């Protein structure tokens, strides 16, 4: 009984703690300007969609959304395209030095962005990559590769080795084994890796700040961090923009919670 009570409290606290702060922000987005600046603050909004209209049309939020979609989408595709073969090889093929490679890769994911910011910036400058989406995608791919490879490698490792040997006896090359047999089977893992990469790229701030200086190219987090009004901080618009920026991810979590959890635990602990 006590156990059930404890659990109920735990559930309530978890849900409230996770959602309440953001809900407050979301409430703010439905207030009127006067309500936003009211002292003391008001609980219930009455402003409707005004701030959303302002955020979307006056602050060109849709352009930021489009940029984020392009960047996060291409990052995901490219990271998978590169990560899948690498993960497969690392999971399956006996290669000398493989352990070092995996360890090294893991270390890369720990690099502070600052440690590589300067040279990456110079590198991108040399190839005209600043202020381009692909210029941002490149470091994103680099930083999401470890997690992609890690998750996928653990997924591939879980798939029976027999299947591959069957494919080899049936005449498949390594590449064909990967594309015809392993890929369809690893679909759930790929999906998880894709979600995680997408979330990472959608949320990343440091490189975006560094690489995208042209407002037309900037991604959502940057737009939100550098959000500005005419004279004061436009909290209402900011809240509306934040809700819009977060909504896709919240939907993703609601829909794919199971995959995210299983993928992360597979990648992390079973490693």
């Amino acid at each position, binding site marked *: 009984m006590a156990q059930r009570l404890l659990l109920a409290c735990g559930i309530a606290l978890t849900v409230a703690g996770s959602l309440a702060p953001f809900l407050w922000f979301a409430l703010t987005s439905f207030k009127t300007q006067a309500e936003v600046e009211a002292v003391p603050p008001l609980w219930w909004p009455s402003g409707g969609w005004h701030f959303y209209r302002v955020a979307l049309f006056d602050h060109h939020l849709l352009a930021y959304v489009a940029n984020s979609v392009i960047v996060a989408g291409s990052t995901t595709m490219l990271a998978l395209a590169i990560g899948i073969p690498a993960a497969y090889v690392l999971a399956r093929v006996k290669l000398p030095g493989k352990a070092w490679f995996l360890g090294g890769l893991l270390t890369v994911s720990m690099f*502070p962005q600052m440690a590589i910011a300067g040279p990456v910036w110079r590198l991108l400058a040399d190839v005209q990559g600043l202020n381009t989406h692909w210029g941002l995608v*490149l470091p994103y791919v680099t930083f999401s590769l470890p997690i992609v490879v890690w998750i996928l490698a653990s997924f591939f490792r879980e798939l029976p080795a027999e299947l591959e040997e069957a494919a080899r006896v049936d005449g498949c090359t390594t590449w064909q084994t990967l594309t015809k047999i392993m890929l369809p089977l690893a679909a759930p893992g790929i999906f998880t890796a894709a979600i995680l990469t997408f979330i990472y790229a959608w949320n990343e701030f440091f490189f975006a700040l560094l690489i995208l200086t042209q407002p037309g190219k900037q991604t959502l987090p940057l737009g939100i961090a550098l959000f500005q009004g005419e004279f004061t901080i436009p909290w209402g618009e900011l809240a509306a923009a934040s809700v819009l920026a977060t909504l896709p991810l919240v939907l993703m979590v609601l829909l794919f919670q199971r995959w995210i959890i299983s993928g992360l635990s597979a990648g992390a*602990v079973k490693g």
Partner: protein
Amino acid sequence: MMKSALRALSADHAAAWWMLVPALVFTFTLAVYPVIASFILSLYRIILSMPALGEPFVGLENYAELLRDPTARQAFLVTAGFVALSTTLELILGLCIALVIHAQFPGRGWVRAAALIPWVIPTAVASQMWRYIFNDQYGLANLLLFGDRVAEYVPWFASPGVAFLIMVLADVWKTSSFAALLILAGLQLIPDELYEAARIDGAGLWQRFWHITLPLLRPALLLALLFRTMDSFRVFDLAFVMTQGGPGDATQVLQLYGYKAMFTEGRMGYGSAVSVSVFLAIFFLSLLYIRAIGSRLLERNA
């Protein structure tokens, strides 16, 4: 005979290497090379706004400068404090959340999703959100604490200690669920049989937690601890958006300090020295990580 067998095999190995090449290229050009380049840059004095100074080689002078600089020391202390405090809290909270979302109850999927939401909210958004919640005039924190006693409203970010704690709070809120995920994975690995054996042995709820769950969770906790340690060492967005490092450098974290040195002040050499130092700190931590847990992972992968 043997040679041809080897050849058949090494053709496969060659294919395998080719499949690694793109990942290697990315990792080397955009991670390994830059770190090396940063290190080389850190040996020069490069001040972009003063090309007249040239770019003299100064050896380790930038590092000496770093050691002398009280601001750098402050940034290091702030970062270390942030790492220690936030990871500790995240681990404790993450463990609690993990225990909750590991239990069986109807609607668990929704609770799990709810717990994950802070983790997917962009840090930039979360930072603005907390900045708003702790606003000195129309923040939720003041409303909850003081209601309409407006005169008592507290300017939270004005106190260095409080500003630092808010940054910790924002990080804990955002990433505890990630720690919880890792710990949850550990929980799932503990067989139910053990709990049943303990129940038969007469262990109560708390004793089961203390004698079974906690010791067996150690690897997962360690993993979460080190993941979080390394990640929180890189804190940047929170300080950048919420406080810009103030007040009085109370939230001046290393990455922000390095960023300012390099990109605001144009001191490429010195900024590189800062970033190389951050890198080394994290690198040694990750060595620790590999020693503590990774060796087991690597064995499995070998």
